């Protein structure tokens, strides 16, 4: 297996296109999770957002990585709407902001860069919602995933392994929301009745990382 060590603009575009497939596949499952503790439309909303983004991807083919991620963020905010739009939009806007302040002009991003981007996105989402882990939100998946990337970067692990670890951390984080009481969004109003259900936003975060990780694994298999 050839090792992949960078992601370029084309890779980001491919991943954004794949995320549309992922959320198309998962939308019914995510809606069923949301029906337990929210209003039941999370899967439709996420799918609508990534579908709108995928439809415009061709128009973004000349953009830098930073500009592409910024477009993606606003596209999600606009077409998902609600809290999920703001949060998942910020996941991409935060990465774009890190790129603009640390990586401008760079066309091939290494693990260290990607780790910085994910940490920045996490920080911005937490600041935006004044949110903390343990509140049964997507942060419970995103924070351990970003930490796994940072750790992998510090240990100079291969890119594929780094995202496998992040994906695994996001999975465990998402599973941990089952035992949590909702403190945010509509789950908050169910109080202890929210316990026993997975947070759909945390699962969406896992699906995003899984899509990236699978993409990198596939590229590694092909020889990047």
């Amino acid at each position, binding site marked *: 297996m050839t090792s992949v060590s960078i992601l370029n603009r084309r890779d980001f575009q491919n991943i954004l296109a794949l995320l549309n497939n992922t959320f198309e596949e998962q939308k019914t499952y995510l*809606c069923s999770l949301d*029906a337990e503790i929210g*209003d*039941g*439309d999370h899967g*439709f*909303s996420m799918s*609508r957002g990534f579908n709108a983004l995928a439809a415009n991807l061709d128009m973004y083919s000349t953009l830098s990585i930073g500009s592409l991620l910024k477009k993606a963020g*606003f596209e999600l*905010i*606009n*077409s*998902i*709407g*609600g*809290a*999920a*739009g*703001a*949060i998942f*939009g*910020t996941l991409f806007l935060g990465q774009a902001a890190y790129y603009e302040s640390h990586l401008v002009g760079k066309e091939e991003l290494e693990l260290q860069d990607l780790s910085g981007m994910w940490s920045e996105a996490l920080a911005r989402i937490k600041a*935006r*919602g004044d949110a903390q882990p343990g509140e049964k939100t997507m942060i419970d998946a995103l924070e351990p995933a970003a930490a796994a990337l940072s750790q992998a970067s510090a240990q100079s692990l291969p890119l594929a392994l780094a995202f496998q670890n992040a994906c695994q951390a996001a999975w465990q984080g998402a599973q941990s929301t089952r035992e949590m009481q909702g403190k*945010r*969004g*509509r789950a*908050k*109003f*169910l*109080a*202890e*009745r929210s316990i026993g259900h997975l947070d759909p936003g945390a699962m969406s975060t896992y699906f995003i990382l899984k899509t990236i990780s699978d993409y990198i694994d596939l590229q590694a298999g092909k020889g990047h």
Partner: protein
Amino acid sequence: MAMKKLINRPEDIAKELINGLVNSHPDLLRLAENDIVLRARPKEQGKVWIVFGQGIGHEPAFDGLLGYGLHDVEVPGGIFACAGAEKIYQGIKLAWEFSGHTPVLELVANHEGDVLNAGMAVEMARAEDIDVEPVILYDDIASAPKGQEQKRRGMAGQLFSFKVAGAMAEAGKPRDEIIRRVKEVNNSTRTLAVALRPCTIPTTGQLLFHLEEDEIIIGPGVHDEAGPEGPIKLPSANAVMDIVAERVIADGGYSSGDEVLVIINGSGSTALMELFILYNRLEQILKSRKLKVHRPLIGNYVTTQEMAGFSLSMCTADEETRRYWDSRLVTPYWKVTGD
């Protein structure tokens, strides 16, 4: 997803609803870019313009309540989901431009998505030197305990704040003064809802909770959220109002001699007959507690599709607030003569 609703495709609801609403009220409403709704006859320049963005599906709130004496710009989102930040920012920008660069007031219902998107929109506007100030409205006592009022979600009691803000803006009051009074009104506002039947969420065809024919829940939200309490057996209308009024009055701390505003808001499919029967009881309760009710508002305003049930909202009102409550209002689905 089978559901008994007069819709076409779920993804077309927002557009068709806004078009139908605006085109059937050409004297009152008009469409701007991106399906943002404005008054047909705009407020004068130099007065504070009020912007509101929220999810649709609560009609007539608040897209059908836009007009003279209320807000100026309505930014509709999706069903029960606030519009994205960029669209709210566009709404703020329209208010800023059309008002001749007068400070803009952004009202925000306290729901996670509304607060997140409004926060981003305000940042985007301020980055362009637009002077905009958000005020977050909350009133539902079922959603957070006393002492944590700021965590409560926005329900029908927001209408008090909207009415006062709108009236003050028409009167040419400066934004700071409007904000001070709106916060005062909001701080004294309390709402508690009751559901008899859930609604079908039009995007998914789902019901979010189930009630037996003889059950109700106390404390549901405006998006069909079941709330923290389990179902109870349906008592008589009087007994339901006794429970709800007791909790609202206790939480609001309204005391003998206070003048109060009252809204009994139907959640969609409750007959006005039932709302008046509830008001009949409420009047007895208020009288016995020596609370003076001033021009109650009764009807289906902030709805949750065809949910059956109602909410009771109250706030205290001094002479000035009562005057703003009474002042002229001309919107498609709420009119006050001003006499």
